[in-house]
């Protein structure tokens, strides 16, 4: 039976010809809930300033340490117009980052939970805008004054009252993507916009963590970032751009402030090194809108780095913004 010798080969041929494929049908299944993030935020008014305390982390972890955090907040006191605290056992204070007064590390295991403390002048932008900023960070819709008032819990500290919110949402605060989803790599600009790509590649600067770049900025903008609630843009225009005072007043008007006319430069701009040349740092902090910007003008082109947003967000990012402005360099351009 010579034919029997070919049996293994024929068997494999038959097996393979049966074919196979992956399941590409609509499926229905029960799935565990997606992991959620949690943020406990407290707002403490003190003399001339508002203090913000914030803890973020995975829902269950923050939940497990909520009482510990609230006990700490109850122990806050005001001395000489400043909020003071006593660290509970097991807590460690770290020097704050830019715009932060302090950070505390606590929790039963590494990595520790972190409570950040930020102090903003005045009312810091108000309750609603700050609660909505936090809601946005954790992936929740913005809400109105009445809903904000209903969502806060009042907490009595030593001689003053804190307003506390406890938020649970799908987005990891501080710049991370949702849940466990992989973050997409930034896309390059479309081939129909080669000039923007060329201009972008001319500049280097520090990119702070937490700032999210929009890969497709609006026209004339070289870069565009979402800086934790504030919009940061870098624009280059041909010519002198209308002059320094006019630009300062334009921003002041946008922020709801009076124009200063000829006094604009003297009263609201400070000199700063910017892209290897002389620039002016301008601050226009209005009630509902704040603009922080750096302007550099010369006879050929003008450059504008601008941060625009609610006062609380802009003030919180002030140091970071200044650092970015000072780090901005044009490749091959000597100081």
């Amino acid at each position, binding site marked *: 039976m010579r034919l029997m010798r070919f*049996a293994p080969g024929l068997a494999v041929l038959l097996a393979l010809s049966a074919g196979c494929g992956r399941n590409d049908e609509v499926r229905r299944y029960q799935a565990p809930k997606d992991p959620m993030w949690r943020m406990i935020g407290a707002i403490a008014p003190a003399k001339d300033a508002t203090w913000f305390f914030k803890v973020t982390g995975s829902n269950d972890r923050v939940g497990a340490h909520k009482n510990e955090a609230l006990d700490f907040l109850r122990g806050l006191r005001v001395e000489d117009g400043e909020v003071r605290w006593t660290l509970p056992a097991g807590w460690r204070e770290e020097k704050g980052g830019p715009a932060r007064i302090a950070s505390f590390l606590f929790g039963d295991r590494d990595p520790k939970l972190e409570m950040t403390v930020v102090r903003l002048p005045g009312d810091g932008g108000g309750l609603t805008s700050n609660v909505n900023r936090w809601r946005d960070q954790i992936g929740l819709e913005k809400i109105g004054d009445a809903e904000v008032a209903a969502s806060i819990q009042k907490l009595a500290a030593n001689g003053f009252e804190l307003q506390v919110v406890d938020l649970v949402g799908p987005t990891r605060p501080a710049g991370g993507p949702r849940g466990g989803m992989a973050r997409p*790599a930034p896309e390059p600009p479309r081939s129909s916009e080669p000039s923007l790509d060329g201009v972008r590649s001319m500049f280097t600067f520090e990119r702070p963590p937490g700032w999210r770049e929009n890969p497709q900025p609006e026209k004339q903008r070289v870069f565009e970032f979402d800086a934790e609630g504030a919009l940061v843009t870098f624009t280059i225009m041909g010519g002198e751009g209308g002059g320094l005072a006019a630009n300062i007043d334009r921003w002041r008007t946008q922020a709801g402030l009076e124009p200063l006319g000829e006094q604009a430069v003297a009263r609201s701009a400070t000199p700063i090194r910017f892209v290897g040349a002389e620039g002016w740092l301008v601050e226009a902090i209005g009630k509902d809108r704040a603009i922080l910007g750096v302007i550099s003008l010369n006879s050929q082109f003008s450059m504008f780095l601008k941060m625009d947003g609610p006062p609380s967000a802009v003030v919180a990012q002030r140091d970071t913004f200044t650092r970015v402005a000072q780090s901005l360099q044009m490749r091959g351009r000597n100081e």
Partner: protein
Amino acid sequence: MNSPERNLVQQALAFLGSLWLTVILLGLSIILVFIGTLAQVGSGIWTVMDQFFRCWFVKIGGVIPVYPGGRLLGAALLVNLLISHSARIKVQARGPRLLVGLAILAVGTALTWFVISHVSDYDSTQRTIDPSLRILVQIIQGLGPAAVLFVGCWLLFRRKAGIVLLHAGVVILMLSELYTSVQAEEGQMTVFEGQRINYVEDNRSAELAIIDASDPEKDDVVVVPQKKLEKGGSIRLEGLPFDVEVAPDQFYKNADLAPARGGDANPATQGAGLRIKAQNRAENSGVDTSSRVDLPAAYVTFKDRGSNASLGTWLTSVRYTIEKGAQTLRAGGKDYRIALRFKRTYKPYGVYLYQFKFDRYTGTDTPKDYSSNVRIDDPERNIVRDVRIWMNNPLRYRRDTLYQSSFDAETEKGTVLQVVTNGGWMAPYAGLGQVFVGLVGQFLLHLFGFLRKQLP
């Protein structure tokens, strides 16, 4: 069977086992690899894999077959190899030697099967093998059964023992690739510090998820795979009171999002699509060194099944889902979350990230090591273990291999683990073990034969 028919079958088998056919098939394979490589200039690597290699035919326009695909060429080569060996290699043993040879061959085959099917289930959370010896141990696991098989082959096939064994190794390698292409799954698990994740996402493919989250314990999820969305048309959503419809030109394999300006034609009537629009982009090609992934988007229309009335058209996009999350659809007095997301596969275990560490050489930005300290918890097996995953030292658990793949560059507080589910991952070790032992054995058989002739 009469004589002419018998001759015809024999001629067919002689052709199928001929060396000419081998040469032709190898030539066709070389051409396929060449055109498949060229195709990567314009298409993503996984599109090319599907259209040229993991298919029976290369088709023009996805319909007309014009060239044999990788699967057909592989199958033909396999059949050619088996038939030619069946015809040419003859058993040289008789009597007790034949029985002993067959017995040893059976033991070797059982050992090979054991290595492929059981060693792959190795649970490295218990760390029984020193990491530095891991590869060596796997090579030994591949070579051991091959050595036993060689003894059996030598008893049965004498001077051709090595040839038989090394070709058996090649057969295992080919079948292993076929098995991998059909069964293996790959995805990524992105976990941030303090977070537990129990699913992987395959960023080569998307799915439209419609989620009923009204139960506080579990979500009721209906998913439509990307291939169905690409085909377009009306898709029935079993268990839901509505169906979904995709217009043929409204699925984008890779899309950007841009602000929707007044005056633009906008298919969306609900949700985020009122503010943003999808812009088609070229697929990221396989030759792109930046390894970007495609982010699909689609305009989908939901229609009430009873009345066929439209519930609205939504723009769904993977990019939007990543950055902003799911959108909401209200139907039948109930809220559903809808999201186009990377294809998800849930695991019976969860990975909790304690800490991600990115070590650099002192004073430089040069990476030294990436590592993740994680906790694996498996409620089914009642297992909770702390393990470390670092570069080139994956975690193996439940036939999954979890590699340290990437991290969240913005915060350095999130890890990305590549999770490969391939029950046959030991097969290449077994196959290559047989090829190696076969080649060395064949050389030694010839050497000893030569030396014996030289002896006086």
